[in-house]
């Protein structure tokens, strides 16, 4: 019995059954309801854009790791798949294939691999790609197909303005006049409006949030703080002058706010580590989004807001510390 060679290692000797891959595929599962709904809303275009985005993200990750970095490719960890899905969700469903491939190259090549790959990228890779495309191809990136189910078509789809776009171009009109031509709240909730592939339907995104929370992939702090702060800041403006500013619910259900709050801002690598810092980060995103939407020249600002706050994450991680157990009680308490 003594001849047996025993493994010796420091404790702990048991592990939770969590892996990076499981977490990433958990995100994929949470994204599936939205994907299914987008296909039902935008038809073939949604399928083409998503497929091209996912395949090219995975392929670029593989090629860069294998031939540029000369490392063992890690495409099976699922992170490139998530980036591909999120990039697709952030562009119109009629975006030409070539532009999607450029977006994927920027996401993976510049957003992720140039910083060292998974775990080291300071910015959300999908958003890096999306913003690059928005600036480089403003026309294609802002021609949104009008949802007509499976008959929507692909590049030949009829296009229309997003609800936030209508608001931006209202000129002298009052909000209530704009609202007459804007989709109803139930249309916003069920995604019957023009917009990026995966951003329009509130209810499927909220199902995704429930899945993420149930699988304990993210904590509630970031989505809740973004949605709450956006609601509060737009609510203050709306209460001050309802003829000039849209109501909070409109702001929460339009644009990429829910997609951003639930799936983009919660990206592990580019978001803070401590609940207190998550609140600051979330409120910052909410505030910047409202400022860009209401006072800026872009109708939509979630992507920019998240990227700006991504840049603050290292600072937040450095200076915002969790309350230590047994920490001395501060003055005044």
């Amino acid at each position, binding site marked *: 019995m003594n001849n*047996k060679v*025993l*493994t010796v290692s420091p404790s*702990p000797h*048991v592990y*939770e059954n969590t892996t990076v891959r499981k977490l990433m595929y958990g995100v994929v599962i949470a994204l599936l309801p939205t994907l299914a709904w987008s296909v039902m809303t935008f038809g073939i275009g949604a399928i083409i854009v998503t497929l091209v985005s996912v395949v090219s993200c995975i392929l670029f990750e593989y090629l860069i790791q294998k031939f540029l970095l000369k490392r063992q490719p890690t495409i099976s960890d699922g992170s490139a798949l998530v980036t591909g899905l999120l990039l697709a969700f952030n562009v119109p469903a009629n975006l030409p294939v070539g532009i999607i491939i450029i977006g994927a190259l920027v996401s993976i090549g510049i957003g992720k691999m140039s910083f060292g790959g998974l775990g080291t990228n300071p910015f959300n890779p999908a958003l890096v790609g999306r913003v690059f495309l928005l600036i480089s191809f403003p026309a294609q990136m802002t021609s949104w197909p009008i949802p007509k189910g499976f008959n929507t078509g692909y590049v030949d789809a009829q296009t229309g303005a997003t609800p936030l776009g209508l608001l931006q171009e209202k000129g002298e009109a009052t909000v209530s006049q704009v609202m007459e031509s804007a989709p109803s709240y139930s249309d916003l909730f069920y995604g019957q409006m023009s917009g990026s592939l995966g951003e329009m339907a509130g209810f499927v995104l909220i199902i995704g949030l429930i899945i993420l929370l149930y699988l304990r992939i993210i904590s509630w702090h970031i989505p809740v703080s973004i949605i709450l702060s956006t609601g509060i800041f737009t609510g203050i403006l709306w209460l001050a002058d309802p003829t000039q500013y849209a109501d909070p619910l409109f702001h929460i259900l339009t644009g990429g706010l829910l997609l951003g709050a639930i799936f983009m801002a919660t990206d*592990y690598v580019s978001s803070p580590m401590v609940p207190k810092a998550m609140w600051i980060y979330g409120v910052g995103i909410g505030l910047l989004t409202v400022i860009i939407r209401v006072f800026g020249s872009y109708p939509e600002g979630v992507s920019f807001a998240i990227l700006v706050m991504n840049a603050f994450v290292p600072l937040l991680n450095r200076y915002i510390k969790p309350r230590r*157990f*047994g920490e001395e009680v501060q003055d005044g308490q």
Partner: protein
Amino acid sequence: MITKIQEAKVLRTFSKGGVHPAEQKLSADKAIEKAGLPKQVSIPIAQHIGAPSTPVVKKKDQVKAGDVIAQSQGFVSSNIHSSVSGTVAKIDQVIDASGFRKPCAVINVEGDEWADGIDTSADLIRDITLSAEEIRQKVLEAGIVGMGGATFPSHVKLSVPEGKEVDTLIINGVECEPYLTSDHRVMLERAEEMLVGIRILMRALGVEKALIGVEHNKPDAIAHLKNMVEGEEGMEVYGLKVKYPQGGEKQLIQALLDREVPSGGLPLDVGVVVHNVGTALAVYEAVQKNKPLIERVVTVTGKSLAKPANLLVRIGTPVKDLIEAAGGLPEDTGKVVSGGPMMGKALQTLDVPVVKGTSGILVIPEKEAKRTPEMHCIRCSRCVTVCPMGLEPYLLKQLAQQERYEELEEQSVLDCIECGSCSFTCPAHLPLLDYIRLGKSHVNQIIRNRKSK
């Protein structure tokens, strides 16, 4: 049955972090069995935190069970007794659970004769006749140390220093480590003696209140103890929500009393002393039966083990004897751990002797024995979420790796209780605790150097 929601409302727990490893209490319904006498024991002459003891026996000396073989040195130290009768074969260096060679008295067992004055009968003696000072003396002489695994000399914890006030004794029956059931069985089978032990501890400390904390996965023990403390003044039993590391002293105090032991402080600083259920039983035996700490209950367990068991074992018995008693070493064994799977130590050899702090022997199959290859940190913050001390394990690991010890100290690395929750939960399988331990030892060294200057 208490539902999950009711449980969350009714049961107390600590506030920060924590994890839920699979419980695997395979031996929970196995009554304590007396293990057979070993042929030879190796009794380490230092089995406690503090100054090592000095051996007082030499080769060829005859000893009886209960004879002192090593005398305590200084206040924070403890006596060591022979656990068997026989002849001292040698004083030798034997590999212990830490993997290092430690001086041991190796004794060949001959018969089973006990030293004079030890009451080996099973009669329960309730009346406590000794004063607080006499109790402390008795505990010191009997070589009692914390049996939860920390092995801090118990008499020291019973001596309240000048200027400190203690109002509550907490008895730790949490047993939050997966697999282990020795405390569970003691609470079920030796409750009467344990309660007298608690009464003795209360007298020594001069407190009126004793709280017994037991995790809710042992409903039979909770019910039994609640029944037993009926009519016992000042004693209360609390069921606690199942969450690791509830058995950590600081976590348990917070769960039961909502008091937070300050960083770098002791339970004494919040008026509490914590003792393990096994220690309470040992105190009973020492004070009422004059029996030193020479045997303890050890859980021998593992998924592939034929007969998981709770054995009453003499100190110094080699681990291989215990595994033999539990059905022999399984074919697929990959690792043998002394203690629980979260904080236990992996053994190099099965000749390692059982010591006063050995709560269990866990046999882990080959397929679970090896670590998974590590990946890059994805900054998921799970380690921060689960840390019961409010630390940032990912950062501590990074700082330790980069040998940035000053920053490591600033980031409260010394508060780490080494519970392993961070490594347990890490999806990238990073050896967080390994590096944190390394960092802690460097920081401790730096602090010692600073003081000596």
